[in-house]
Each structure stands twice: as C-alpha cells, then as structure tokens.
C-alpha cells in the first residue's frame, strides 16, 4: 500500500506525520511511502533526507492525495482536503470527532475510512500509539521553557556574590501527562513546584516527580481511573474549595501552568481574574488549555497578553508545533505503531480489523458508516487504584496539647511509682537491720545505673552484651572466694567447685566477647 504524508495546510503547523526514520520502519511492513515536497521542511527534515530513506517525494498535494491509499496527517483535514478524499482511502490523523461532526460527516460522504489518533483507547497495549500523550509531554516541557522565556528570574535558587536569588515557585494545575512533564522539567530546572489535581490518586505520581501535592480536604474525590485516566467535571462545592486553594497560592507563586482539560467539554475556568490580580508583577501564566477556551480568565488563544498588574498570560495553542522536530519524531512513531497494528501480516496489506479494541476505538468512519462513538473497550483502562488516604496533620495546637497531656500522664505515672517505691522502702526500713538497708541503697542505685546504661546499647551489640554480662556475672566467684578459707570441709568443697565454674564463666565470657567484637568491621 502507498502511505502518503501531505504538507500540513493549517497555518503555523510545522509538524509532519512522516519522518525518514519512521518511513524506514513502515517500508519494512511492506508499504511504500510518499511525501509531499517540502512537507518536512519546517520540522527540519529535508526532501533529500526522505529520498535517502527510500521515500518518493511527490510534487504538489493533489498528486499525493490522488496516489496515496493511506494518508497520514497531523491536523484534521481542511475542507479542501476532504474533497480530495476518495472511496477506500484511509486517513490517519488527529480528528477530534466530537468537535468536528460536520467534518466527519463529509469524510463519510467521501467514502473514506478515518482513524482518529486522538481516539486511541487508553489501555497499556495502545500506549505506543498514544499520540495525545506524546504531544502532551512536549507541551508540558515547552510550557516550562516558554514560562522561563517570559519570566525575568532564575528558576533555581542561588547564593551569589551579587546577592541571594530565591527559587521560582511553580504551580502546576492538572497532573495529566502535560502536567507531569511540566513538573519534571520545572523541578529539574531547580524550581519549587507544587501541583494540584482533582484526582487524589495521582498524588503519588506528583510526589514521584518531585513536586508537592496540594491536598484538598474533600470527601467527594474523583476516581479518575474509572474514566480512563481523565478528569471529569466536579461539583460546585468542590470547585469552590479548589478556587479557595488557588486563591491562597496566587500571591505566593511566580509561575502558573494550567493543564486542566475535561474530554469533550470546554476547559474549566480555574484561574480567575482576581487570582491574576493577586499575583506579583512579572509572574507568568502558561495556559495549556487555551485551545479549549483556557483555564485562565485572561487567556486569549494564540496570544501573549499582559495583565494590568504586569502578569504575562501565554495562551499559545501550538506548543508541540513549536518543537516540530521532536513532536514529528514522536508523532510519526505513534503513527508507525498504528500502521503496524493495521498490518498484522507485515505484507503491505492493511487489514482493518474492527474486532480489535484499539483499531475499533480509533476508527471513526469506516465503509460508509460513522463508527463514533465507539463501544467501551473490553479491557479496562487503568487498574482502579484505591485513592490514598492522607492522614490529617495535627495542627500545632493539637500537637502541643497532645504533648502536654503525654507529659502530664508521664509525670503522674512517675510520681505514682516514686510514691509507691518510697512507701515500700519505708516499710522495709522498719523491719530490716541497718546494715541491710545500706546494702539495699547500693543495690537500688546499681539497678538504676544498669537501666540507664543498657538502654544505650545498640541492637547489633546485644549478643556481645549478653556475653559480657555473662562474664561479669561470674563475679559470684567472690562469694566462693570469701568462703573457701573455711575450716569446714563440705563448705570448702562447695566453694571450690563454685570457684571452678565461675572461672570458666569469666574467662570464657570475656574471651568470646572479644572474639565477637573483633569481627565487627566497617565497610
């Protein structure tokens, strides 16, 4: 089959759906590749490079649309392009079928099969063709770079001879692929990053990227894994809570990157005018949702606006296109994987298997029928992870109160023990002879010292401790020594045996301890 990539007709679109690298892989599937002359120019791929990779370079879009049996593109087709579609032709591209119903209708009328790259279901098997994620990844990275471009200070904190520079504080709203990519980029530039998402289960991912998760105290939290990893609209109460949290953050943060999107809906307004007003002059807002109306009140799609208080609001919608080379490489690979799935025999014949979950999900028009929306996939998107419950941090007052109570309880217990001990001593003193009490004082003090000293012994030395105490307890030999000089024979014999075994104990105990301790080595 002939796979052809035309030059993108949309204004400012620099990406291309076929790269020399992906062309080589596609040819291995038994296909032939075509490209419109100059299609890769803007992304840094010359016609010569394509030719070297075995791609036929075709002059003019008309010839390409006529010859190619499968057309691969980045943006949805323009009206002119739709007219060139013909029966049996397959179009693989970003299509946004929910927003472009008329366009879909027109394609169907032309008898073409349309595979929408944005409709690839989010299951593990299809990750290699998940072009939305690849583009979002780039957008997230580029958003930080764009923010840095518009931000007048360093990201990382520094202490220099010319003064101290505080680190930039970045707030990322929405921790999808773009949000996580932005977090990763910003943290590696040295910024202090905080992130928010309505799905509490992503907190782990956020923290793993090195950002702090802003946790909202709210019962009704979403389980995003139910909806294929995407966020759903939230209740008004939740929204209020959320805005309150942002309002708190606004004066503190330097850079805000908003990525909140809800599939098939306009972007939710999360960064309101008063929050922009509360920000410091020179702060930057990058609105990655600008194409869908923007998360920020001030966002104007494709424009960079400066608010009255000097906050820059960037609403570009073409972040992936601004990194056309990288974006094309990734997108072309996604397309290539889609073609691999469409060519299971690797014989250059497209087998449009509508029983395959991934192909079925992505196909929006086929054999003169509109096949959108697809039935839910058989495989569940992401294993539903139970949201992690965060333990409530006690407030300083509570902590103090708890500490105070613990201290009081301890004092009470100690005082009680002392009182009981004192009373017992008093009783004992009444009956015991003076000489006994003197020894008893020594005994009690020794117990105390023993307790104090032993608590400090490290766990790993417990065996040597036992051996040493063992050796020391051989001190019982003194008892035998004191008695051995007797004139009684029986006592003498008993004492002698005691001396013998106590000596074994002392010598054996100490030697074995020394042997053990000599073995402990540092690395």
């Amino acid at each position, binding site marked *: 089959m002939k796979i052809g990539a035309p030059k993108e007709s949309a204004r400012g679109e620099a990406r291309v759906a076929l790269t020399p690298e992906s062309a080589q892989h596609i040819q291995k599937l038994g296909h032939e590749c075509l490209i419109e002359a100059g299609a890769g120019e803007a992304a840094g791929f010359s016609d010569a490079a394509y030719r070297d990779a075995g791609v036929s370079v075709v002059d003019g879009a008309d010839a390409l649309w006529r010859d190619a049996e499968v057309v691969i593109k980045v943006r949805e087709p323009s009206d002119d392009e739709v007219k060139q579609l013909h029966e049996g032709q397959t179009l693989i591209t970003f299509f946004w079928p929910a927003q472009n119903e008329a366009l879909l209708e027109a394609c169907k009328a032309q008898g073409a099969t349309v595979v929408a790259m944005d409709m690839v279901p989010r299951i593990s098997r299809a990750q290699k063709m998940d072009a939305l994620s690849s583009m979002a990844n780039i957008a997230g990275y580029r958003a930080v770079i764009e923010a840095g471009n518009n931000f007048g200070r360093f990201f990382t904190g520094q202490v220099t001879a010319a003064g101290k520079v505080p680190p930039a504080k970045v707030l990322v709203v929405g921790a999808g692929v773009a949000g996580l990519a932005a977090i990763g980029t910003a943290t590696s530039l040295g910024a202090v990053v905080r992130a928010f998402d309505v799905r509490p289960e992503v907190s782990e991912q956020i923290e793993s990227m090195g950002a702090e998760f802003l946790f909202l105290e709210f019962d009704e939290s979403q389980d995003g894994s139910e909806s294929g990893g995407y966020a759903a609209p939230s209740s008004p109460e939740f929204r209020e809570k959320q805005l309150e949290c942002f309002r708190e953050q606004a004066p503190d943060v330097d850079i805000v990157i908003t990525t909140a999107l809800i599939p098939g809906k306009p972007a939710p307004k999360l960064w309101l005018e008063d929050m922009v007003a509360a920000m410091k002059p020179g702060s930057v807002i990058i609105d990655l949702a600008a194409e869908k109306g923007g998360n920020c009140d001030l966002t104007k799609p494709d424009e960079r606006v400066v608010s009255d208080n000097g906050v820059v609001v960037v609403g570009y919608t073409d972040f992936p296109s601004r990194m056309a080379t990288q974006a094309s490489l990734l997108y072309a690979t996604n397309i290539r994987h889609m073609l691999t799935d469409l060519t299971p025999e690797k014989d250059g014949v497209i087998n449009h298997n509508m029983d395959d979950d991934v192909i079925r999900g992505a196909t929006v028009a086929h054999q003169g029928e509109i096949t959108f929306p697809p039935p839910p996939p058989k495989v569940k998107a992401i294993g539903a992870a139970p949201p992690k419950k965060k333990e409530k941090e006690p407030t300083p007052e509570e902590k103090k109160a708890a500490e105070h109570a613990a201290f009081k309880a301890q004092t009470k217990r100690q005082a009680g023990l002392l009182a009981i001990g004192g009373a017992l001593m008093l009783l004992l003193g009444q009956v015991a*002879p003076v000489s006994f009490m003197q*020894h008893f004082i020594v005994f009690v003090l*020794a117990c105390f010292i*023993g307790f104090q000293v*032993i*608590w*400090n*012994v490290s*766990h*790993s*030395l417990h*065996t*040597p*401790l*036992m*051996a*040493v*105490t*063992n*050796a*020391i*307890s*051989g*001190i*019982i*030999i*003194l*008892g*035998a020594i*004191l*008695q*051995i*000089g*007797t*004139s009684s024979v029986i*006592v*003498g014999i*008993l*004492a*002698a*045996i*005691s*001396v013998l*075994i*106590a*000596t*074994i*104990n*002392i*010598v054996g*105990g*100490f*030697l074995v*301890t*020394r*042997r053990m*301790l000599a073995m*402990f*080595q*540092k690395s």
Partner: protein
Amino acid sequence: MLGQGFVSAAAIAASVLFILSLGGLSNQEKAKRAVWYGIVGMAVAVFFTAFGPGIGGYWWLIPMMIIGAAIGVYLAKKVEMTEMPQLVAALHSFVGLAAVFVAWSADLERRRVMAAQAADGAMQEFSAFAALVATKAPDELMFLQIEVVLGIFIGAVTFTGSVIAFGKLAGKVDGKPKQLPGGHMLNAGAAALSLLLAIMYLNGAGFWTLILLAALAFFIGYHLIMGIGGADMPVVVSMLNSYSGWAAAAIGFTLSNDLLIVTGALVGSSGAILSYIMCKAMNRNFISVILGGFGGTQGPAAEIEGEQVAIDANGVASALNDADSVIIVPGYGMAVAQAQTAVSDLVRKLRAAGKEVRFGIHPVAGRLPGHMNVLLAEAKVPYDIVLEMDEINDDFATTDVVIVIGSNDIVNPAAEEDPNSPIAGMPVLKVWEAKQVFICKRGQGTGYSGIENPLFFKENSRMFYGDARDSINSLLPMVE
C-alpha cells in the same frame, strides 16, 4: 595480706569499670575498649578479694582457678559463632549453680557458727565468712536467711532453665513446647511448696529444707523452659541472663559484699531490658512468653489464596543482575545452614557491581538478641550496611529485590493484615512491599511458631527451595 581499705577501694574501682564496660557497648568501636574495662575490673575484683583479709584456702583456690580458666579458654576458642546461643545459655547455668552452692555454704557456715556459739557461749576464732557471720546480730541473721533462700531459689531456677535452654538451642532437646500433665499448676504447686519450705527454714528447720527447696526450684526451672518454644528463645536467654544477675545480687546481700550486689544488679537489669526489648519486638506480653505457647486467637485465621511459586537459581540471579537495590533479611535458618559466609560473598559481588545491598535485621531474628549481627560480622559483612527494622522498614517499597534467608514469622504480613493471626500486631519487616521477594527455604511448611505465612503466596514472591548455603553458593557464579 591486703587491708580492708584496699579491698573496698578495689570494689569501687571494679564497679566503675563494669559500668563503663556495659556503657561502652553503645557502638562497635567503643565496644572493643569496653571489654578491656570489664576484664580489668574483674581482675582487680578477684585479686583484691582473694588477697584480702580473712581469706584462706589458697591450695584450693588457685588450682581451681587455673583449671577453670583453661576450660574457659578452650570453650571460647572452640565455639562456632552459630553456637553462640548455646554457649551463652550454658554459661548462665554455671552462675546459677555457683549461686546455689555459695548460698548453701553460707547457711552451713551460719549453722556452724551458731552451734559453736551455743556450745561455749563465747566468741571463738573463725576464719573466712564464718568470722563475718559471728559478728551478726540476730535480726541480721534473720535477713541473711531470707537472702539465702532467694539466692538458692533464683540460682536453681537459672541453673536448670539454662541447661534446658542449652539443650533446646543445641538441638539436644526437642525445641517444641512440652509440658508435663498439670502444666502451670505443677509450677504453681512447686512454687507454693517452696514458699512453705522457706517459712519452715526461717523458723529453724534443718538444712534439708534448703536441699529440698533447691530441688523444687530445679524442677520449676526445667519445667518452665521445657514449655517454651524455640522461637521464644531470645526472650528466654535474656531472661535467664537477668536471673543470673539477680542470683548474684542475692548472694551479695548474703555475704554483705557490695561489689557482688552492684554487679548482680547491673547484669540483672541488663537482662531485664533485653527481655523487654525482645518481647516488644514480638508484640508479646512477657508473662505469656514465660508461660509458654501463643495466646488464644479470636477467630479463624484468614484464608490464604494463591500458590507458592518456585524459582531456580537462574531466575534469582537474573533478577539480582537487573536490580539496583537489594535487601537481605536473614533469620535463624541462615544460622542453621551456616550460610553467612556464602551470603557475605554474594553481598561482596553485588556491591562490587555497584548495587546497593543492605541487611534488614528484626530484633528477634535468630535465637539470641543480636544473633544475626554477630553471624554477619563473623562473615565480614561491614556493620554499616546491617540495619535495624525501624531503620529499613520504609525502604522496602523502593527496593528491587528482597532475599529472605531462613526467616519466617518476622516477615509474615499476617501480623499486619490479619487481626485473627496469633502474631497480629507484631512489628514485622515489610518485605512484600518490594518489587520482588525471593524466599530461601528448605521446603514448604510453617516455621517454628506453626503459623502459615501469606508472604509465600503473594504475587511478587518466589520460593527458592533448598539448603540456604547451597542455594546462595549456586547463585555466586551467575551473578556478575
């Protein structure tokens, strides 16, 4: 002959040295010096007491000490590090027996002195301890008798208890808890009878009461420890350690010797603290450990689903080669299989390959407090990669491979997950949080405590059956 002043000064010096010796065990480097404090303290104490006033019988004393020292040296040289628990238990029994003998002697001396005083009513020349007894007032003698009773009782329990603990640890006595019919009632009966005998003795009954008392205490010690399972041995050994100290302290009272009292108290409290730490590490009540057997369960243990999946050395080796971080959790099984040297070789290879290798030691791993540390030290594993449970427990989640060698209950997730488990609430090493867990084990079956371990059935667990030493050795050539 040295004067009394010398003896007292020596006692003070020895006490201080003993305290320093125990305090020095707070870290490995200081510990090497600390032993010397103990040795010097003991030498000072023995020398000055032996050559103090009123001591005789050197023709007994010196040969006995030389023979004892020779035996001690021989034992210390010969013992394998894996046999440490047995040795410690055996040495405890000596202290117990000596305490019984000394207490008996003390009473014999007392009788002799009393008889002589009653006979001629005048002061007579006595030697050694008898001279001291002769100066005592009647109420002091009464207390002396109480102390003798205590010394005999504690000493006797320590003696037979240690002998049985030694037998169990050395494998000469079956490690399973065993009790005569009647169980704890028998112990209680014997204790009550002992009390009766003690009262009779205090009221002037003959020396036979003390012999009978010792016999009863011997029985209690034997029966008590027989009823305790092998897994609880760390507590038992430290408890006996404590008893031997208290026995020494009781004798110290009898003989009015402060050095004995101080040392006995130090040893006694040390053993008590160790027992406490061990019990806490098993989340068990001290009383229930001593009385033997696990506490009653509240319901049926949770059913375990899944199956134990075996793996061969190849699989383990390739997982180790892929891993960046490895934690090894050794248990008594490592000691039994003498696998510590093989483990050490494996660790050296893995570390040479730039992997992070650490050990996680549960406080009650092995049969003696700190048992695993000593074994690993013997195999030349640096002590700074050997970590305690609290230090390492949070790191399992970020670890690639955990190798469990011959431990069972201390890595049992049932302790945390199943409230009906007999070990519910016991702190355990959370090995199952790691990406992969390999369990080196002789075969299927439960450990000492007889509790099924759900860890073996977890999805990320693989059973690596075989003798621990052979298994680890077979890994060595395959690990780069």
